């Protein structure tokens, strides 16, 4: 059955991580070195070695994930271990420092590690929260289907606009020509909330246009009526009837535009959610690489200046 990486094998890796942290803390509390606690005591070296091995192993996840024909355990197990042991690393590495921080390459490595872990936590948050939202936002449609339907609605809107008048057609055409789903980084992340949307102005225009039409009709209705005048009124109402037909078309057009707008909103939301799910990795992974480099320098320099 479906088993989230959080719950993998009944939280096996969470238990391992807690045990590791608990043992580290207990040792740290029990250990009373002759000097101030630091990475250079035997416990410091032990914790440092464990932390370094953990970091390398955590980074190895990226390679293991791509070894698709490997028959070792499932990737979800690896991710579970990656997450929980990564969190445990905060405890192990912090105790390794003995709380000795400074403006040096050692603390740089520690700082980078914390940055990687915090970005990982953000990733966990996203992985836990977004999939459900993404699915309910899609309402069973694929991205492709959403885009197809937007295209269909565009065509319907253009067809209707064409039947009203050229001004309306022009406005709708403008809203259709501009790409509805944005590609730039910020637009993806903000779901297009920044910047003007041609669809909004089209909608505003249509509303104004409709008001004008209705006003004209109301004006006709408001005329006092009697006898021969009423007959004349009746005839001009037939004229207004033609306007009324226009109003109907316009209403249909506005409905179409409205539907497109909501679908577009959902599509943008989809783009945003998918971008969020992926973009954090563009931070997490490069900083991990930087961490590996800093770690190497940290280890070499420690042994060089021993």
């Amino acid at each position, binding site marked *: 059955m479906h088993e989230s990486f959080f719950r993998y094998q009944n939280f096996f890796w969470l238990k391992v991580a807690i045990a590791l942290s608990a043992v580290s803390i207990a040792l740290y509390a029990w250990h009373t070195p002759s000097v101030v606690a630091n990475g250079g005591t035997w416990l410091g070296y032990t914790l440092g070695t464990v932390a370094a091995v953990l970091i390398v192993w955590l980074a190895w996840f990226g390679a293991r994930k791509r070894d*698709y*024909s490997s028959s070792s355990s499932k990737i*979800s197990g690896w991710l579970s271990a990656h997450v929980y042991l990564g969190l445990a690393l905060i405890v192990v590495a912090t105790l390794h420092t003995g709380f000795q921080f400074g403006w040096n390459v050692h603390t740089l490595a520690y700082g980078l590690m914390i940055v990687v872990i915090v970005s990982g936590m953000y990733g966990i948050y996203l992985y836990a929260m977004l999939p459900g939202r993404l699915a309910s936002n899609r309402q069973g449609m694929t991205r492709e289907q959403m885009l197809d339907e937007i295209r269909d609605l565009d065509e319907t809107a253009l067809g209707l606009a064409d039947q009203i008048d050229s001004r309306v057609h022009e406005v709708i055409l403008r809203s259709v020509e501009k790409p509805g789903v944005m590609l730039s980084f910020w637009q993806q992340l903000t779901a297009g909330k920044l910047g003007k949307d041609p669809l909004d102005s089209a909608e505003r225009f249509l509303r104004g246009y409709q008001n004008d039409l209705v006003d004209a009709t109301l004006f006709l209705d408001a005329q006092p009526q009697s006898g021969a005048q009423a007959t004349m009124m009746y005839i001009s109402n037939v004229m207004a009837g033609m306007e009324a037909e226009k109003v109907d078309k316009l209403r249909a057009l506005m409905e179409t535009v409205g539907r497109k707008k909501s679908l577009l909103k959902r599509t943008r939301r989809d783009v945003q959610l998918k971008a969020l799910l992926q973009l954090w990795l563009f931070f997490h992974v490069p900083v991990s690489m930087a961490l590996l480099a800093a770690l190497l320098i940290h280890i070499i320099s420690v042994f060089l200046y021993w």
Partner: protein
Amino acid sequence: MTEQFKIVIVGAGPAGLSAAGRAHELDIAYVLLESAPHLANTIYAYQKGKYVMAEPSVLPLRSPYEFAAGTRESILESWQQRSDQLDLNIRYRAEVTAIQGQQGQFTVSLQNGDQIAAENVVLSMGMQGNLRKLGAEGEDLPFVQYQLQDPDEFEDETIVIVGAGDSAIENALALAGQNNVYIVNRRDEFARAKERNVQLITKAIEDGVIDCFYSSSINRVEALVQASSNGEQGLLVLNTADGEATLEVHRIIARLGAIPPRKFLEACGIELPSADPSAVPAVDQYYQSNVAGLYVIGELSGAPLIKPSMNQGYEVIHAINGDPVAPVDEELLWDKLNQLVGVSNVKQALDLLQQGIAFLGSLTHMQMREFMLDSELIFPSPGTVIYQKNDYSDEFYSLFSGDVSLIANIDVPDQAMNLQPGEFFGEWSLISGRRRAETVTAGKNCVLLKTSRRAMRKLMLSVPDVQQEIDRIAVQRTLQHFLVPGVPPEMLEPYAQRSSIERFKPHDVIVHAGDAPDVFRLIRCGSAMVKRNLSGKDVVVSFLPVGSFIGEVPLLSEKPSRETVLATVNTETIRVDRDILIELMDQFPAVRSRLDMSVQETLRKEIQFANHPEAGDLVAFMMDQGIGEGTDVLMIDETLCVHCDNCETACADTHGGVSRLDREAGPSFAYLHIPTSCRHCEHPHCMTDCPPDAIHRATNGEVYIEDSCIGCGNCQSNCPYGVIQMGVVKENKTSLFSWLLFGKGNAPGSKDGDASQNDKANGSDKLAQESATPKIKKAVKCDMCKGLVGGAACVRACPTGAAIRLAPEKMVDLLRERNRRAS
């Protein structure tokens, strides 16, 4: 002057060409007469680009002409070239109007008045020269046609297709894109055509792409005095169920099949065995009709396939020449049979097998030969395991001599059943498409006849006696397995005899709510779902896989059924009426405890569903997606899926760069997503029409396609779930690090089409390579990573645990889990 030949061959189709070519090679005086201005008119009239099959694949070709599966164009071209090369004595536009005389002195009269003298005449004219017409007034009007070669020729026309067979459907579908198409079906459904075509046309009608007149016939066709504004030239009058209907049309295309030219044949003196218009002349083993010297080969002799017809052409010339050759399959068969003790020829060996194996008794010699081509004899040493319980293999075995033992329950070895020579086994998997129900071990001197699933199903379809005999034993064994384990199946014979097999199509009702509690059923193939009306709404309350009982609760409680039971896919049940079941319970008390267990399980399931009515909707959704016939389905939990597509990438990486699953495509319901990926159906649709028989099921259940795939695309169009693609598989993979550090090759798991910059830079080299070794597209589909140790790569590569593969019998667990989460 009248010309004189030893052999006159009428009709330059596959059979006639082959005969003429052979006569040419043997230096016999012959002439080949063809009424059309070109060769092979039937194939010539095929739809443009049609892929022609070379069935049966095991049969060797014996002809001066080459023939392999390929497009209409390539086949016609190769035959034309060969004819030119041989400089065949062929006369085009030579329509034969009469054949008179007797052996040694036939006179063949042609339309243009010429007469040709012949010692022997070979009729190889097929039937397409005699197409069935509308049979109504106006059937010969110029806008009424009986063939369609190039559907692209017509655009924006109103076209009426008449007929309900494959060619009618294929024409209608091909034309519907750019024309307004109607189809006229005499019946109320499309029953004659291939399953896939039926699905396609039904869908096109549902979607409004094609309009269908069901239960309608042609009243008359009239030419319009003046073409209508849209250019329609004719008027079609139909008799429909609601009275007459008229349609203005550009064109009528009637695809009603062809029949033998009865009048002509009778005028030649040939007797037809029955008054049935489709009856073909009876011929002897050398294809000679009742008129000595007058031979009939090819479609007209009842051989509808191209390759056997070509072989007949070759053989008939030898027969006339006085040196008859043994049938082409003789050597193949002898290779299979020569290990049998005490036989000296194929006929003797086949006779022996037929005597030894009861259900083969009713086969004709020709049927037996065909059956043997698809079977093999095996001689396992004592103790060899033929197959294991829970394996997914699907071959069928007949015991010719020695013995085998069947153990259904490994924990109870003394319940082993020994089979006697003449009996068969393996029928359960053949019928149900499910795992083996027992382990079979060879005993002493064991000789087995092993037959492929495909051959066995074909035989059962074509010879009702075989189907009956296998069903007779299968019913006994199934009842024994599910109701009275441990009892010899023969003891159940009297009960089995009074049981019957019922077949249901998808969505057919098996039991109506309110039906009297007097029938018990056991599902032996397919599956069913149970619906109950809860406060006015039909709610699915249970799902019944193969081996489940239907009706045991009402029967034991003696109350009418409260539920409706529907077949989800093509389903077969064994029906046991109440009094028979009661007798059975009287004689074997074990039946009672089996039924009690089933009742408990049913009630438990129902309580589950009652607590979570939404689970019923989920079941209904899953049934719609073919889970009812699947054996292993990929399902994604949308609350866990982060859309990383690692599943697809893993699939592509482990399968030569072509992913066999499309994660995003496919429907979702209640956060459960079923991607477009193989369900490994119990009776795989893809297997139905595979010319090289390249699709098989491995012991773990995975349905896979072998390298022998010819890329015809039949499986792709037969799969109702759209999970088969045609792709070119790449051989080489690059390692992650050489890609990451040195930018070599494609990223791991990159798919066709996303070639990296490096490849683009070397584009010219690549093109040169490709044109040097053109690769054909082959069918690719999920094989459940059968070569990989850890199992399916898609599931193992999922980082969040969103992807799982599920067998339908585990579906209840899935629902239980989701219910738990919901509450």
